[in-house]
């Protein structure tokens, strides 16, 4: 057994121990399990929300994107920054409402705000459809990391099953509390590893950061800037994607749910000034990917995600490869656990209670949510092992799915909400349908609207869906105005 493998196993067991231990001293009822009893202070909420940034998608995908595509990777840094600016005003009212109504999930928020169980059920279904591919992506990353850093001793299939089992056990035991404690370990480890790699690798292989970028620019002119045109690379693509993903950022049900864990609302306003700096760590992930472009060339297609580990293995001793691998494992397990908690809660609280059994007690819902954890995990594992390349498409679809919830959330926060439940329902339904059709048929804006000037053809297709969503939302809301314009934003008694 290599030293790399021993370190990875030790860290995984430690994560399991921490996750299970987190329940100590807390009676795990629905509110504790899903939102930690709304008792988390600045540090935990910060880490849960920051945890969203450091997933395997950014760790492997961020470096892989820089390695394979160059400049377009900059968008990751930009969209999260703008999302945090929005969070300053968006999250406090959401949190206040959630606390007043003891909400535990995102569909719950919609159902109460618009006084419509049907809307809640639909949002829950959209959420679950968006979450499963996200979970699959974490598991896939986990498989890659363990298979590579164990030098083949553990197959990626075995790693996926073991990882899913670890997460399932601690989520069933501790819910979101397990995720919170593990994000502390994860963030410390990833911070150290990424800073070190991002500073050391360019210097070790090129002499300095400037030399590295000079060398890349000479070898591959145009790689470090946005091209004039081209879907998923041009400046227009950058602008539209940054804006769209910034709007969707907090609409992910698990991120929305982590808002509910906060103890007070000032936490969000304080985090809005710290999180932009904190996510600058991603810059060092990009540096690793760029360092790999000329040192481990030749990876193409899905394999670009391996660039960080290929370069690490080529440069360092096995024990350090183990440390990097362990950090990578945690970037899969922690977000994976949050997604799993959220998906199970959605199924039990919002789909089961909202649709099938209105009078189900909290205790019963908690029990069902826990029972759903292994079910969701197994479904995700099966998708991971048999899903193939369609997963990336599904994830893009998931991001565009949750963005469709943005207009209805913003309107519901207005002092006098003119939007109606019918409007919200139809708007979201149209948006989601457009996203699904365009994704499955691989349509681009250029194909849909061929009369547009060339530059606009690179606009992210999600904008078409969002625009149609807003139009339908506005028209249907106007048609279904109640006679007395009593704002639905007023508190609805439970």
């Amino acid at each position: 057994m290599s030293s790399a493998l021993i370190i990875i196993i030790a860290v995984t067991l430690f994560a399991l121990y921490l996750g299970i231990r987190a329940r100590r001293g807390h009676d795990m009822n629905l509110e504790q399990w899903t939102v930690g009893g709304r008792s988390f202070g600045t540090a935990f909420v910060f880490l849960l929300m920051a945890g969203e940034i450091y997933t395997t998608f950014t760790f492997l995908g961020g470096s892989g994107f820089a390695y394979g595509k160059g400049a377009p990777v900059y968008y990751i840094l930009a969209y999260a920054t703008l999302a945090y600016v929005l969070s300053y005003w968006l999250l406090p009212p959401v949190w206040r409402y959630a606390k007043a109504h003891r909400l535990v999930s995102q569909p719950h928020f919609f159902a109460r705000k618009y006084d419509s169980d049907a809307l809640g059920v639909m949002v829950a279904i959209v959420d679950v459809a968006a979450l499963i591919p996200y979970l699959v992506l974490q598991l896939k990353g986990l498989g890659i990391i363990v298979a590579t850093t164990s030098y083949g001793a553990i197959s990626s299939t075995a790693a996926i099953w073991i990882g899913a089992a670890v997460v399932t056990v601690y989520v069933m035991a501790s819910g979101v509390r397990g995720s919170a404690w593990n994000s502390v370990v994860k963030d410390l480890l990833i911070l150290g590893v990424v800073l070190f790699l991002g500073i050391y690798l360019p210097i070790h292989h090129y002499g300095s950061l400037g030399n590295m970028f000079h060398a890349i620019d000479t070898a591959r002119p145009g790689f470090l800037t946005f091209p004039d045109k081209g879907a998923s690379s041009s400046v227009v693509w950058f602008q539209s994607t940054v804006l769209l993903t910034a709007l969707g950022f907090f609409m992910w049900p698990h991120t929305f749910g982590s808002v509910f864990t906060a103890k007070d609302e000032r936490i969000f306003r304080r985090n809005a000034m710290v999180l932009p700096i904190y996510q600058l760590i991603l810059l060092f992930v990009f540096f690793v990917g760029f360092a790999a472009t000329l040192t481990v060339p030749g990876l193409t297609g899905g394999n670009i995600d391996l660039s960080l580990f290929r370069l690490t293995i080529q440069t360092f001793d096995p024990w350090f490869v183990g440390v990097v691998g362990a950090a990578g494992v945690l970037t899969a397990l922690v977000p994976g656990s949050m997604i799993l908690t959220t998906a199970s809660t959605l199924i039990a609280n919002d789909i089961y209670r909202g649709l099938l059994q209105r009078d189900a007690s909290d205790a019963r819902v908690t029990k069902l949510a826990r029972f759903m954890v292994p079910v969701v995990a197994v479904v995700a594992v099966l998708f991971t092992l048999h899903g193939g390349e369609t997963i990336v498409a599904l994830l893009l679809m998931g991001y565009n799915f949750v963005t469709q919830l943005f207009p209805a959330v913003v309107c519901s926060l207005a002092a006098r909400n003119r939007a109606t439940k019918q409007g919200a329902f139809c708007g979201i339904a149209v948006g989601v349908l457009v996203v699904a059709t365009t994704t499955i048929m691989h349509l681009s804006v250029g194909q849909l609207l061929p009369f547009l000037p060339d530059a606009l053809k690179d606009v992210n297709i999600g904008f078409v869906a969002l625009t149609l969503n807003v139009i339908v939302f506005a028209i249907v809301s106007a048609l279904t105005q109640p006679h007395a314009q009593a704002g639905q934003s007023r508190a609805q008694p439970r």
Partner: protein
Amino acid sequence: MSFRLLAVLPFIGILLGVPFVNRVEPLVLGMPLVLAWIVMWVVLTAAIMALVYRLDPANRAAAEGRTAEDRP
């Protein structure tokens, strides 16, 4: 009220600024100009949000543990 307008700056800088700095040279702190521009705006955004936090009356009453907008 006007302090809220500060929050528009990052959007202008990042979304509208990038086409004008879409170049590699000159390298700034070893980074291509367009990347350095985005990094600069990330840092500026943090500073802007710190200023907004200072100016926002909602955080002033907060010293006592409750914010001005907090309703029972």
